[in-house]
């Protein structure tokens, strides 16, 4: 793949002002068990994506057939020629120094077998209690990436990602859990089954609760679900520059203890690596400090528009152009223990249904609480038919406490957070 990537760049720069090649190779093994029936799969994929610039016109093409590099180059150039000049385009990024990011590659992935994965599923099976495992799976993905461009960037990286997921059923109540790690033995396979079973068991015999404006504790999973479709967009430089982020730098977006940091160099972080999709070094960027918005997430295009440097937040795969996204988004700072968050009357929101229907522009949401609980007077009552509504920017301003139970869910690392005065609608 390296040879093909270099050849593509060499061919492209003959006719273009600038060019960039992103190459990717992935191998995955997944074993899924559904009520005892096994599906084992091995997938291999590789490809290159080529971005070219001719007189500020940008074209992109990709191919998975590395014998057809010439055709891929011709297509990218053709597409640039029919595009239009983008006066805001400055330059592709240039050579960088790269951080050493530990814990992103587990050599265990090189010889991994279906048999070893089955042992993980066996652990999961043995961890079930009080609920039936309906489906469970374990996957192992190994990736190699290369980014080279006409401005001197030439960087490679490799990584592994292991994940497990489970869906359980206790007397007609289902609950799902998952976990991921950069290490084979870092995935908490027993914990996800125990947690899913506990929540499913405790959610049997749900009862109607009284709605109104009440305090609510969102678990890391619920935080990740809602943030993914609202706050992530609001913290993107593209949203700000195009006028549909509610924020400007310097705005107070939450209480004084609120901090949001994007850090692509976290040891073993799911979103960690040396470089982003444009070959820019990943780094730690403080987005929100003491409740104040300090910075947006940038790729090179949007950074150069305002005279800044990229924050290393260009995400992509070989068949897409780079778009702004998080690496590891860490929400803090902890100011209370988890049991303090649960004090007094409040709704425990374990997860939500319908987060993707939130408005990315306004941040307004109205979602069903999935297996939530009303906490009141020492009791934990499984809540039936509950909807919570609001607007994410307003909700951040109502954050009361940030707990200490940090958990990584997708690209968001967050503890549970308690909010005041959440609109709760009950049937």
């Amino acid at each position, binding site marked *: 793949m390296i040879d093909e990537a270099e050849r593509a760049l060499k061919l492209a720069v003959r006719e273009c002002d600038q060019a960039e090649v992103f190459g990717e190779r992935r191998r995955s093994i997944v*074993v899924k068990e559904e009520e005892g029936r096994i599906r084992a799969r091995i997938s291999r994929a590789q490809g290159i994506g080529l971005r070219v610039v001719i007189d500020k016109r940008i074209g992109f093409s990709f191919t998975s057939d590395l014998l057809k590099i010439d055709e891929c180059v011709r297509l990218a150039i053709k597409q640039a020629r*029919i*595009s*239009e000049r*983008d006066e805001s385009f400055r330059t592709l990024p240039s050579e960088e120094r790269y951080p050493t990011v530990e814990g992103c590659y587990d050599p265990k992935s090189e010889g991994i077998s279906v048999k070893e994965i089955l042992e993980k599923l066996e652990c999961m099976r043995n961890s079930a209690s009080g609920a039936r495992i309906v489906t469970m799976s374990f996957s192992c993905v190994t990736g190699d990436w290369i980014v080279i461009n006409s401005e001197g960037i030439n960087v490679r990286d490799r990584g592994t990602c292991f994940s497990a997921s489970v869906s359980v059923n206790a007397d007609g109540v289902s609950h799902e859990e998952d976990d991921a790690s950069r290490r084979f033995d870092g995935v908490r396979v027993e914990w996800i089954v125990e947690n899913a079973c506990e929540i499913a068991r405790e959610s049997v015999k749900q009862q109607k609760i009284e709605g109104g404006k009440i305090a609510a504790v969102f678990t890391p999973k619920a935080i990740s679900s809602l943030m993914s479709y609202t706050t992530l967009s609001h913290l993107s430089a593209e949203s700000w520059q195009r006028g549909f982020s509610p924020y400007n730098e310097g705005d107070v977006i939450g209480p004084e203890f609120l901090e949001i940091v994007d850090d692509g160099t976290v040891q073993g972080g799911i979103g960690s690596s040396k470089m982003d999709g444009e070959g820019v070094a990943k780094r730690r960027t403080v987005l929100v400090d003491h409740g104040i918005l300090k910075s947006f997430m940038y790729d090179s295009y949007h950074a150069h528009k305002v005279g800044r440097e990229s924050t290393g937040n260009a995400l992509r795969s070989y068949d897409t152009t780079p778009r702004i996204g998080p690496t590891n988004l860490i929400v803090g700072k902890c100011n209370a223990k988890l049991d303090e968050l649960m004090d007094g009357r409040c709704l425990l929101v374990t997860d939500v249904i319908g987060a993707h229907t939130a408005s990315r522009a*306004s941040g307004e*949401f109205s979602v069903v609480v999935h297996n939530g609980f009303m906490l009141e007077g020492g009791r934990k009552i499984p809540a039936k*038919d509950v*909807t919570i509504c609001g607007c994410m920017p307003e909700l951040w301003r109502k954050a009361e406490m940030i707990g200490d139970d940090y958990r990584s869910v997708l690209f968001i690392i967050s503890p549970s957070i308690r909010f005041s005065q959440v609109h709760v*609608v009950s049937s």
Partner: protein
Amino acid sequence: MDLEACIRYLEGKVKYADIRVENISSFSMVLRDGVMSEICGGIESGASVRALGKCWGFASANGFFHLKDICDEAVECSTVEGEKTGVAESDVYNEKYEIRERRDPEEVGVDEKKEIVTDAYSIVKDFRDVKSVTVSYSECIRRKIYANTEGCMIECRIPSASFSIRVRCRDGSLIQEASERIGRVGGIWEIEERYAEASMSAAERASALLRARAPKPGSYVVIMDPKLSGVFMHEAVGHAMEADHVITGQSILRDKIGERIGSHLLTVFDDPTVGGAFGFYKYDDEGIKAGRTNVIKRGVLVGYLHSRETAFHLSSRPTGNARAEEFSELPIVRMSNLVIEEGDMEFEEMADVSYGIYACGMRGGEVDTTKGEFQFAAEEGYVIRNGEIQDRIRNLALGGRTLEVLSLIDGVGKSSKHSIGYCGKDGQLVQVSEISPHLRVKKIRIGGTYD
């Protein structure tokens, strides 16, 4: 080793196997606030082998590969001990077909497609309150070959194209958005005929939503417009009738065939062969001939959607609903084009209520199929008072329990509209559509932040 030789090779190794080879040519352009920020195109090609030995084994590769190596990997994966499974019997088909309508994407020049995108932007950019506009055009030409060890061989060419526009309006700190999407399997003529009107409609709605208020939460009579009715049926019922959910006990519709599950006014079916529909295909990804599958008939559950494996376990017949996003994914049970049969109620009659909500447009939805608990969001709505459509409302999401809400449908409208989308399940996205009239529900829960 070529395809036919690989099939013969697999016949000697496993109980059943199939091979899918695909070439996917895609092209898209995105205009963001007047800047043509992406003109992209490329080719993805590859193959996969699915083998049934002691379990299902699956292997795939893209680019340059040796098909026999993939066969060997799939066979190796199929040697794991597990619970018995199988595939229901089916007819064997041999067909080569292609979908080719007027204005086929491969026959229309890039300049004409670019003109659609730039013209759509120029129509809306100066509309009142408009802050940001994203217009996109994308097309995908799939060339697929399917073969299995039972002698089935299907070869096809399926083009699809879609247009979307998202308009964001802003008034001070308040931001609202509205979107439209047009697409079909076939030519781009429908996009060409409708994009102008759709773009203006998105701009008008986004601007009007700035002056809309949040709904008062509670349970109300709700009329759903065709777009929203379609999403409601997709989320509330559609996923629960996918037989893989039924088999694992994750469907509220398990063991209910022959039972009344909703209003007698309701008849619903799934049909991949609706001409030009966004979820169109003639054969599914197991080589089963696609056709209409009745699921609800006058309120009674009459069927599920099946793959060959789910049909085997439920002693039923495959319905041609096994679909994979592309060759590198396993086919699983999916909807295609979900149709709610039209009724005979005029809209004026439906709206003749003392107080209710008219909910329009859709922003998607989600469901817990085990409990039958669903949520779906409308783009906008209106308060109805004494038969009159009045105040506009925004951030309107509806939630509830499937079996309760289906039984509360007391009005089905006369004329249907077609809406398109993408459905996500197990990490796979497939093209789907809903064809639905207005529906009225006597009572459904609405979330809102109105004080």
